[in-house]
């Protein structure tokens, strides 16, 4: 989907190499290396404190690594950019706890996420064009909230908020989506639907999914990376990974 830009150092969409970060002496990430290819969907699993969320923070510019390389699209050094710039490059992020704008309507939530110029003046004199309105309607349809568009996001249920947030990611139309525990706190039915939704998205986006729920990962059926104590423990299809002795040891605490 994305041809490497001229002068690219790598053909990968996302390229992490030897990344480390520590908080007050605690090494949250140590020598993490990871590559995501364009169009790929990757699941990342690992026990609590494995560094999953910190890794996302590093990719999205919230946390600066102490050392290591983080490249996007082959040539852009993400460690030098702030969150907004990274978002505008085409990296979207969904939080562990669903984070939507409670005091905005569902439609406005999507509108705010819709890919567009983000400058102060442009937003001040913004007028929604019909094409954009169509896209909003389309996304509302995908996330099954079209009939609730005028309601405040704060009044949604937990699962609906998760979908709304995914819808916002869609509206952003990023090249890479980072999705943190999309199925947390969902009913089984909702979980299955979410998996379908994600697979649909993965058709034309690269996606990284962080998840605990093995059933959910199995449903996605993608390559899995296991993190442990801030570095990669194992990588491969789920069956292969779950057979790995080290992984079993870490998960079961033996």
């Amino acid at each position: 989907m994305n041809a490497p830009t001229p002068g690219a150092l790598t053909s990968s969409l996302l390229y992490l190499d030897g990344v480390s970060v520590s908080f007050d002496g605690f090494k949250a990430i140590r020598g993490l290396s990871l590559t995501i290819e364009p169009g790929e969907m990757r699941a990342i699993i690992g026990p609590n404190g494995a560094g999953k969320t910190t890794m996302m923070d590093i990719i999205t510019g919230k946390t600066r690594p102490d050392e290591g390389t983080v490249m996007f699209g082959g040539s852009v050094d993400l460690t030098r950019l702030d969150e907004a710039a990274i978002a505008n490059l085409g990296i979207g992020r969904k939080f562990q706890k669903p984070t939507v704008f409670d005091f905005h309507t569902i439609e406005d939530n999507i509108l705010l996420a819709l890919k567009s110029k983000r400058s102060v003046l442009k937003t001040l004199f913004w007028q929604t064009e019909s094409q954009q309105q169509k896209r909003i309607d389309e996304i509302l349809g995908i996330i099954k909230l079209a009939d609730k568009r005028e309601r405040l996001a704060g009044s949604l249920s937990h699962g609906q908020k998760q979908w709304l947030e995914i819808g916002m990611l869609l509206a952003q139309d990023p090249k890479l989506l980072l999705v943190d525990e999309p199925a947390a706190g969902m009913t089984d039915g909702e979980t299955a639907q979410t998996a379908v939704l994600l697979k649909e998205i993965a058709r034309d986006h690269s996606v990284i999914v962080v998840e605990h729920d093995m059933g959910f990962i199995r449903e996605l059926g993608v390559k899995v990376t296991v993190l442990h104590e801030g570095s990669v423990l194992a990588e491969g299809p789920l069956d292969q990974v779950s057979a790995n002795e080290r992984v079993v040891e870490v998960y079961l605490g033996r």
Partner: protein
Amino acid sequence: MITRFLLSNMDRRGFVFLALIAAIGLLVPLANLLLPAGSPFHVSTATMSLWGKYLCYALLAISLDLVWGYCGILSLGHGAFFALGGYAMGMYLMRQIGSRGVYGNPVLPDFMVFLNWGELPWYWYGFSSFPFAMLMVLVVPGLLAFVFGWFAFRSRVTGVYLSIITQALTYALLLAFFRNDMGFGGNNGLTDFKDILGFNVQAQGTRAALFAMTCVMLISGFLIARGIVSSKLGKVVIAIRDAESRTRFLGYRVDRFKLFVFTVSACMAGVAGALYVPQVGIINPSEFAPANSIETVIWVAVGGRGSLVGAALGAVVVNWAKTVFTSGFMAPYWLFALGALFVFVTLFMPKGILGTAQGWWESRKRPAPVPAPEPAPAE
């Protein structure tokens, strides 16, 4: 485009408010000037100038509500912008005195004469011109807000920390303006004004005109603030208030949006200060006192945070109550009443007068309310 920007999404409450202010702005000066003092509809000059003061405060409250109610920036230093606008106007009025000061010095204001200043300090140049002074009313507070906000928002100082350093800002300015060496009249400030644009500031006609001008500015301030909050930028700003990092991950440069709103708000506060000075007749450093800024926050809280009409209403109600309670037998106890009001409002009316009234009204109209979201965290 501008009219669309200003008037789009206007709700009924907004129209009522605008109509009310416009009517006041038109009728009060007329009732003051044209009706004889005996008429039951006559408005005395005292009442008019009192309400002129309230309306200046209302504009200040709207400007604060813009940053606090909509953007979540609790500024405890908005009085500083108000006072700076006031000083810019005060400097113009001082220069208009000319040689009618008590010492008859054609250039220097009186306080400089008796403190033996040799010549006018450079920063007083230009203030004899009305357009320049009016420009400064916007530029000085705006520039201060811009520079302050540029640093503060870029380094992501938020919440309580931001509130405390805005307080430090206004406190530092308070101390600075108290110094007589600064050339702003020290503790006494600027006073004894004579003319504005050639009209006697104390004349009834001038007062009526100033009152009408205050209403015009209040309407303009309201329309601009309204325009901002109902535009997409307004939605971004509210998004920043409710989930700052989410907004950032959507690709919005949060610092720039905050800076924009903060600067616009400071300019608005400056205008309020500029209108306040000729009506009150004095500007002095006590306007910078942190307590004044906190009080402004309380007007907004009382009226209803996140509602422009509410903020204006709060300013008028609290100040009116202050006027009433500081006279007569209540005089020694009015601080009890004021203090109790603040405690009461924060405890029992977190949405302010307007929000509470609206909630009550809606619950009457619709017995089964939609589940309202939890009140937003203030940070």
